[in-house]
């Protein structure tokens, strides 16, 4: 039977896995953000390494393709002096029919210390964390629609960098929230860190009324959604949404819920615009906004490496 206690925390309430932002206390989130800050300076040095994970093996298990996220994790692990092994799951034994748990068991036998897992199904990292050896740590790099905790943390780091105080912010998250693990992680992080107003903006087919139970205000009008916002987080629109009868076309989506200069002008004058990437220019966001002064899309990348270094070093230091 599954444990009801939060599997991410050990008996002393220390983080041993990072599976989801939900259920983590504010103190842990703040600790991760503060630690990430110290690692930023490492990335500016000539020798960009610290020995915190020396001798440890980090296995990247990506069941879903992602060059960007996998590369950031790889860089982060190497800067901590860990040995990194990337597993190409499509060509691996899983494609030959080996079960997920057998794959994990085999890799654990090769003395893996940490698994960074991205999987197409919500909840997969919980299954892995439940079945791997006690000293092995699991970092969720994205599971289905459920959670992308390191992205959520990096979004919070970025917001804190530019805006300092969460307790005064109005944040608008725009787009395909129903299918977005990034949106869910952002919502949990913002509510935990005390943001007073979080808006979920999009058409009814992509933004469900159920979301309000997560602590957000649901808006089906873009102008209303971004009005006075301090932070606007734009989500990528996937082509499958047109195929699934959720939207008629990318063009109509851009007209009704895309972020252009005119809509941005409704937000707070010093509002920042974020996007977890990859960006579909002209679909969810206009090029002029992407390249404009309010966009913080590029600096996120450096923050991402520092946040992942922080997460890995913190969990590796705590025992089950």
């Amino acid at each position, binding site marked *: *039977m599954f*444990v*009801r206690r*939060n599997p991410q925390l050990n008996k002393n309430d220390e983080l041993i896995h990072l599976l989801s932002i939900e259920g983590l206390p504010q103190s842990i989130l703040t600790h991760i953000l503060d630690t990430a800050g110290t690692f930023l300076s490492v990335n500016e040095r000539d020798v960009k390494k610290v020995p915190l994970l020396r001798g440890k093996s980090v296995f990247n298990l990506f069941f879903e393709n992602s060059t960007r996220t996998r590369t950031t994790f790889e860089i982060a692990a190497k800067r901590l002096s860990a040995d990194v092994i990337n597993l190409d799951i499509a060509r691996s034994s899983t494609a030959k029919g080996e079960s*997920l748990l057998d794959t994990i068991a085999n890799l654990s036998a090769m003395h893996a210390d940490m698994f960074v897992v991205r999987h197409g199904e*919500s*909840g997969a990292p919980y*299954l892995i964390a439940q079945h791997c050896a006690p000293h092995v740590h699991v970092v969720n790099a994205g599971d289905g629609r459920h*959670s992308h905790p390191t992205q959520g943390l990096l979004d919070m780091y970025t917001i804190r960098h530019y805006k300092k105080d969460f307790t005064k912010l109005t944040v608008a998250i725009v787009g395909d929230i129903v299918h977005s693990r990034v949106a869910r992680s952002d919502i949990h992080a913002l509510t935990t860190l005390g943001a007073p107003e979080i808006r979920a903006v999009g058409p009814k087919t992509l933004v469900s009324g*159920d979301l309000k139970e997560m602590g957000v205000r649901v808006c089906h009008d873009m102008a209303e959604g971004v009005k006075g916002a301090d932070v606007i987080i734009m989500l990528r629109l996937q082509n499958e949404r047109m195929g699934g009868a959720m939207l008629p076309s990318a063009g109509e989506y851009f007209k009704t819920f895309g972020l252009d200069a005119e809509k941005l002008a409704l937000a707070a004058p010093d509002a920042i615009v974020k996007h977890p990437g990859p960006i579909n220019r002209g679909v969810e966001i206009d090029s002029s906004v992407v390249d404009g002064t309010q966009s913080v899309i590029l600096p996120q990348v450096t923050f991402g490496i520092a946040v992942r270094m922080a997460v890995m070093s913190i969990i590796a230091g705590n025992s089950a």
Partner: protein
Amino acid sequence: MSGRILISNARVVDPAGGRDGAGAIAIDAGRIAFVASGDKADPRLRDFTAERTLDAQGAVVIPGLVDLVARLGEPGHEHAGLLESELAAAVAGGVTSLVCPPDTDPVLDEPGLVEMLKSRARGLNLARLYPLGALTKGLAGEALAEMAELTEAGCIGFSQADIAVKDTLVLHRAMQYAATFDYAVWLRPNDAWLGNGVAAKGPLATRMGLSGVPVLAETIALATIFELMRDTGVRVHLTRMSSAAGLELVRRAKAERLPVTCDVSIHQLHLIDVDIGYFDSAMRLVPPLRQQRDRDAIRAALADGTIDALVSDHTPVGEDAKHLPFAEAEPGATGLELLLSAALKWGESSGLGLARTLAAVTSGPASVLRASSPSLGEGASGLVDGAVADLCMFAPDEAWTVSGETLVSRSKLTPFSGYELPGRVRCTLVAGAVAYDAIR
């Protein structure tokens, strides 16, 4: 062969007749000779020489349980369950008659296959097996199955199991054809397109990023079924209800006197969406676990008779099939051995009394079975003189813990794993022979 058996010192509970009191049951040649009340010395007891006496001190004796939804693993899923193991699990749970859906592999649309299944089950001398035939060939929802041939082979009704018929014209015609011969149609109300998802649509599924099945999938399917019933006059039994809104529609259909009955599974009676916890695949079930208000409505509907029967929804699943991320895990759980305890546990909080509580697993489903197949023959007959002696003796004050060690079924996976449940079966008789004895 079974001879003369006396069950003495029993508390005899007969939900059909409302009897609940001290008594004894005399069995002769596999049938109930008579049921004696304990409060006056019954002269028939003096004249009855028992070859064997079963002392039911501290136990309750009821008609054997009737389970309207139990999959047995055969044919097609033998790695998870076999007739031998699952029918043994049935009697270990006090179940003496069970109905299996046609979604075996191959599908039960061949009279020969049905005959084979019935004959093998008979030979095991465990619980009685009443198969449902496929409504359409291969359950594909296109061509009608040979309902008359299948009935002759032993089918007690026709079903689509969990595969909704998409084409309303085909469904209409299938019901018309069934109504021609007074065959009953057993359907799980679920819209083919809206009904896809691994959890119940709602705030929890949204939070967890799991595809959700809205209540609409059940209510839209029910509205269609009731309209077709009004037009064709066919009898329908609705299996595995899940929502408050759906039950309200059933209530209205019954008030309108449509020939409809329905059941609910032990999972929907006791569990809700929140019990999924951290993506526990033991909770991956069809229909999905809904919310608190749906469970409350289910409990009220079982108490007021809107729901006619409680079922185990027994579905043997191999461990490997559950050790997967939630959406990929195979839905289902073992349940035959939990049916009695699940009813008793509900009874504890409902305040209904033992006879009324147990009606949900004895007289209620027996009525559904007999309405579905009026020429049923033996079995599911209750505590009536001359009826076959299908009985369950259980200790209501003893509890047991659900675990791999205590379960007889080949499949040990259930959301109730680790739970301590009320009511331990002491022995089960089928046709007057002891099919299960806890002491052995």
